[in-house]
């Protein structure tokens, strides 16, 4: 439906004045067409391609003439980007800061990506960190975390948290939905669970103190997924401790459910908090299903089907009961 159609209908019903109709129609006609997100997507893709290309360039020219110049150029670009971002840094505040320049945020991302290239190369060529591989990932984490806070940048915060998670030996790859890790190792699972609990705790403490409360969502998304995957990994792999992991999963799901309810009551802008409800129900369902078949080992196929019918309907009811209810017409859509 075009704006003109809507105006005609409203005017015919006497809901807007004729003067208003012409005014709004005029505004709609003159309104410039926004290319905001198209241009930013292009900038973003360009930054990813550039850092990928430079990374490949360095490795492909390993031990060749001109390599030094190339590294110098990348280092200069990294410093330059960071300097530019620093010059355009937002004013320091404990709440969400307003970005002062269009390109500062993107320059910061480029600087961070180039830093990773340089660091990876330094380890590859000169073994700066020797065999202490943990340091390779701890360094970006330690560097990016304060940067994320100073520049109020959620993307860099995501990078810092991912580096931190890599540091404890887990590499989560949200795009491929698979994890290159070994959850058969009890130490890895325990450390992943501990780290995610620490991160979640830190996020809540900071939110309580009103220090960058809008970062909580990023913390909870990343740490929450890590926690759930680690708990499921423990549930699948360790016979002797299975029930403890099951208990942990239950508590985590319950906590996320409570959190979503609480969020929904407190603020209007909490549509995203339903993500945690989805996470707890899907991960919880996987866990429950595994436990059911592991312990009951039903002999006939019918039990399987009945199980999925009953639980499927039950989860649908549970999710439906969480949907916002009430005077729908009077709420914004």
């Amino acid at each position: 439906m075009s704006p003109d159609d809507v105006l005609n209908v409203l005017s015919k019903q006497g809901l807007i004045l004729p003067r208003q109709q012409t005014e709004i129609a005029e505004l709609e006609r003159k309104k410039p067409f926004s290319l905001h997100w198209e241009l930013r997507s292009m900038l973003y893709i360009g930054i990813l391609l550039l850092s990928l290309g430079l990374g490949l360039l360095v490795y492909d020219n390993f031990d060749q003439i001109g390599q030094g110049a190339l590294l110098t150029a990348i280092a200069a670009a990294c410093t330059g980007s960071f300097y530019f971002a620093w010059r355009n840094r937002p004013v320091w505040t404990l709440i969400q800061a307003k970005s002062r320049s269009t390109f500062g945020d993107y320059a910061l991302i480029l600087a961070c990506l180039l830093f990773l290239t340089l660091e990876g190369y330094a380890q590859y060529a000169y073994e700066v960190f020797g065999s202490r591989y943990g340091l390779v990932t701890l360094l970006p984490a330690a560097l990016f975390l304060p940067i994320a806070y100073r520049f109020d940048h959620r993307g860099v915060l995501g990078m810092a948290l991912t580096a931190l998670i890599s540091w404890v030996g887990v590499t989560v790859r949200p795009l491929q939905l698979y994890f290159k890790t070994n959850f058969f190792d009890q130490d890895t699972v325990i450390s992943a669970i501990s780290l995610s609990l620490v991160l979640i705790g830190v996020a809540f403490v900071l939110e309580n103190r009103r220090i960058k409360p809008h970062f909580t969502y990023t913390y909870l998304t990343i740490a929450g997924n890590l926690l759930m995957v680690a708990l499921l990994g423990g549930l699948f792999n360790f016979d002797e401790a299975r029930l403890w992991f099951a208990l942990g999963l239950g508590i985590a799901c319950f906590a996320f459910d409570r959190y979503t309810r609480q969020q929904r009551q407190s603020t209007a802008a909490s549509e995203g908090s339903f993500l945690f409800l989805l996470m707890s129900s899907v991960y919880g369902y996987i866990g429950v299903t595994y436990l059911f078949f592991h312990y009951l080992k039903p002999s006939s196929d019918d039990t399987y089907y009945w199980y999925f019918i009953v639980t499927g309907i039950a989860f649908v009811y549970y999710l439906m009961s969480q949907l916002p209810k009430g005077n729908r017409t009077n709420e914004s859509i």
Partner: protein
Amino acid sequence: MKAYNEQWIYNRDLLIQSERWHRQGLLSDEQMEAIRKAYPVEFRRTNGFIEIGLFLFTTVAILACYLLPASIFSGMLDNPTVYGVFNIAFGIGVGIVGWFLINRRLLYRNGIDNAFVVTLTGFLAFGFNQFLPNGLSVSTHCLFTLPLLLLVLWYYGDTLIAFFSLAAFYTAIFDSLLKVSGGRDVLPFVMMGVSLLLYIGVRQVINRTSNPTYYADPLNLVQWLSLIVLAASGNYFMVRELNGLLLESSSGRSALTEAPQIGLPVLFWILTFAIPGLYLWQGLTKHNRMLIILGTLGLIAAFMTVHDYTALVPLNVALTVGGLGLIGLAVAGIRYLSSPKHGFTDAPDDDSPNELFINVATIAVAHATSTIPNGPKDDLQFGKGDFGGAGSEGKY
């Protein structure tokens, strides 16, 4: 009579537009209240994340409901006719239950009803195809299923069904062309022609229909896909590599090292650039976001095609230069449009999916960081390969 209350869908569109004006201060609070009263929407309010969960769990429950009787009567279902009747009956049953749920629970694209539509279509199509004699070609199956899909599409206006209908349509053409002699040579032209007709047809429907809101999403999807197929059918890389693959499979020759040159290479090289160029030009003059995005992506794909066949520079240089070029263009565009010019602006507006974009950016960044080397030296292929952002096709 259709699955969802058409008046509410119409009202919903009208309210969305009015809310936008209300936010901009063009309508007063009292006026907005009056509009809400005059155009009620009774659908259940919903949330994207919950919808995903509802879709998953509903599908699980329906499939289990199907498998339970199917396993009990498995002995009787060896006969294709009985099996077909069973599937169709089950599909109709799913449809009836879905109808009750949609009306009682006031559902509209809440995940639950989407799951019902998709599974019922699957059962009906599967059961229907059991009645067709054995040995029919893929294209015949697609052609016979298409009316069924279109019927479901007419009733529900579901986007996923629109996608399946379009897929069946294109598969039917593709497969039947390969059966006739010379079909492989005309394939790109037929695909381009059909896509163009489809696009023009949909535009006509949108322009002529006073109230196409019920089908807004399917119509949108058909436009996107037909334009993509149109550009891809004219792309030199796609035509040459697909032709090579088809030659390989038809003649039984194993693994050609390189796809052979195609007929009319000059024409396809021109089309590789001309079609996306035309999209971009039309998009900019007509202020059509879809054409602008597809034109830009198509031109990027065109440059990648050139790189693939001429290899003027190695991949790493191409990526670096390409990245720099995109950054330059974007920066120039943002600076140029900092104040509105020629009817364009850099200021964000309501049409943009800003929250979604921010989330996608965070995921992509987290993914990029996860390629940080943390293994022994042999694994240190930093940054090799698994970036998802470039929109590249094939071997790039």
